[in-house]
């Protein structure tokens, strides 16, 4: 029997990352590897350090210590805080994608949907209007927004549509690693379901690697292959999603799982 070729080189390796604002405030002793095509969830309560960790990973806040090593498309291993800022920002807009919790933070609200998607393309050097527009319309359809609305402002869209537009904008330049901060936070459940469905399809189709911060265990169950549980700036448990949610070992994880409301 022919075995499928499995990429054994991790896409992202995090070694002893520490970023503290005060004692046990921020994140510390974080270690993990992310492999291509994998969806990793970071769960934990508010203030546990999830977002701090995500900011470190997305190049927005340098950690106090530790290494974040990214394996680029060209096959280089780069410590993302050792390279200069120009290179890091280029990496962030060509190979990384960041989806914010509030679409308003991730979109330009004063320019059209098409320009929002096109901006990333123009930022990496596309100078052909017709091509940019075609790509934008194409992406709108992929995220189930009518391509007719390419010239509409994001403010004319519903919250769910704005979030889908933000996802289209991020994915337009084919990033390899997408970082998401509570992508379904603040949306009602039916809209949430649609976004989750979309993310799941796109992740499979495009072979994306995703790191997703969430406090919603149902979202984690649906999307994530592996989970990291954080509490008071430390990782208290990590493992396969089903394993962690069905058989939590750490007292805090047990509390988290038992706190979930079931209708």
């Amino acid at each position, binding site marked *: 029997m022919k075995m499928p070729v499995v990429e054994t080189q991790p896409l992202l390796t995090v070694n002893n990352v520490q970023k503290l604002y005060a004692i046990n405030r921020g994140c510390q002793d974080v270690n993990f590897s992310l492999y291509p095509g994998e969806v990793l969830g970071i769960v934990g309560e508010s203030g546990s350090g999830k977002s701090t960790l995500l900011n470190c990973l997305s190049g927005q806040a340098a950690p106090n210590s530790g290494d974040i090593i990214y394996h680029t498309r060209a096959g280089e291993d780069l410590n993302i805080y050792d390279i200069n*800022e*120009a290179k890091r*920002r280029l990496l962030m807009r060509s190979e990384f994608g960041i989806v914010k919790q509030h679409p308003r933070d991730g979109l*330009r609200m004063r*320019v*059209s949907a*098409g*320009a929002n998607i*096109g*901006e*990333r393309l*123009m*930022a*990496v*050097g596309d*100078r*052909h*209007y*017709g091509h*940019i*527009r075609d790509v934008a319309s194409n992406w709108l359809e992929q995220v189930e927004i009518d391509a007719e609305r*390419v*010239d509409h402002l994001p403010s004319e869209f519903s919250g769910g549509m704005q979030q889908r537009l933000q996802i289209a904008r991020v994915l337009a330049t084919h990033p390899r690693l997408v970082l998401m901060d509570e992508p379904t936070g603040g949306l009602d459940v039916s809209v949430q379901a649609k976004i989750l469905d979309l993310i799941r399809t796109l992740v499979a189709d495009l072979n994306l690697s995703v790191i997703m911060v969430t406090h919603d265990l149902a979202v984690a169950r649906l999307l994530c292959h592996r989970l990291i549980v954080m509490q008071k700036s430390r990782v208290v448990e990590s493992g396969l999603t089903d394993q962690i949610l069905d058989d939590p070992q750490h007292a805090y994880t047990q509390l988290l799982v038992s706190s979930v409301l079931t209708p």
Partner: protein
Amino acid sequence: MNSMDSMNSMDNTESANVSHAQQSNYNFAYLDEQSKRTIRRGLLKAVAIPGHQVPFAGREMPMPYGWGTGGVQLTASILGEKDVLKVIDQGSDDTTNAVSIRRFFERTAAVKTTTATEEATVIQTRHRIPEQSLSNDQILIFQVPIPDPLRFIEPSETETQKMHALEEYGVMHVKLYEDIAHYGHIATTYAYPALVNERYVMDPSPIPKFDNPKLHMNEALLLFGAGREKRLYAVPPYTKVKSLDFDDHPFEIQQWEENCALCGSDNSFLDEVIVDDEGTRMYVCSDSHYCSQRVAEQEQEQVSSSHSQNKSEDLA
């Protein structure tokens, strides 16, 4: 003297200015010598890095912001006693702003002033580049309201500085994209962004995009001063300046179906003027010196041709 020499000889103006200062209550060209020197240092840096915005210690001028305080400070800093000054506003020598700035320097510096483009060594301008091509012994000074072309999309100053430093100019095309999406063509008609010396994107001040091609490889030294924002920048002579565009929507300048009603020019920038209550309109050159010069030439031709006609009649 070419414009680079005039930059070097600026320091010589200092001693010459002393005699003027003794006669007048103001220092030569209003500003004190220290302020002028800091601005000249900024200008040297700006010339060395074409298109890069250099901060400078802007002074209060006896006029409100928005009336050309940036341009006036630059003019005051580089003006020498032998300079001939021309001031234009919207292409015209006789609008309020042009007249008052010209008078300001007549009174505080006693320099010779002119309306003739070719006679001037220093030209301060608002909104236009003269139609007549400039030479390498002239300096053109622009009054700039908002120096940073990235400001419309990025309100943070630290962020725009970083974007300039790292050449992240992708967002400049977002505005042009929006124009095409909404109007079918690039509808930005003034303050049209341009790439200077293949490095910095510059806002060429509110000149019409009609004038953008004149920035490219211009023989004169072009200086830009923003008084409120306290920034100056420069395009040295013979520098490449490319207006931003898309591959399938190339940069184009405005065109008119009419010719100038006064001089008949078909290739100058025209202003639309409403002449009566019925809404009758005429189009005239915005560059008043260029227009009047052409009218004078045409009249002279007519005179000389009618003169020669008379002569031939006499002979007959």
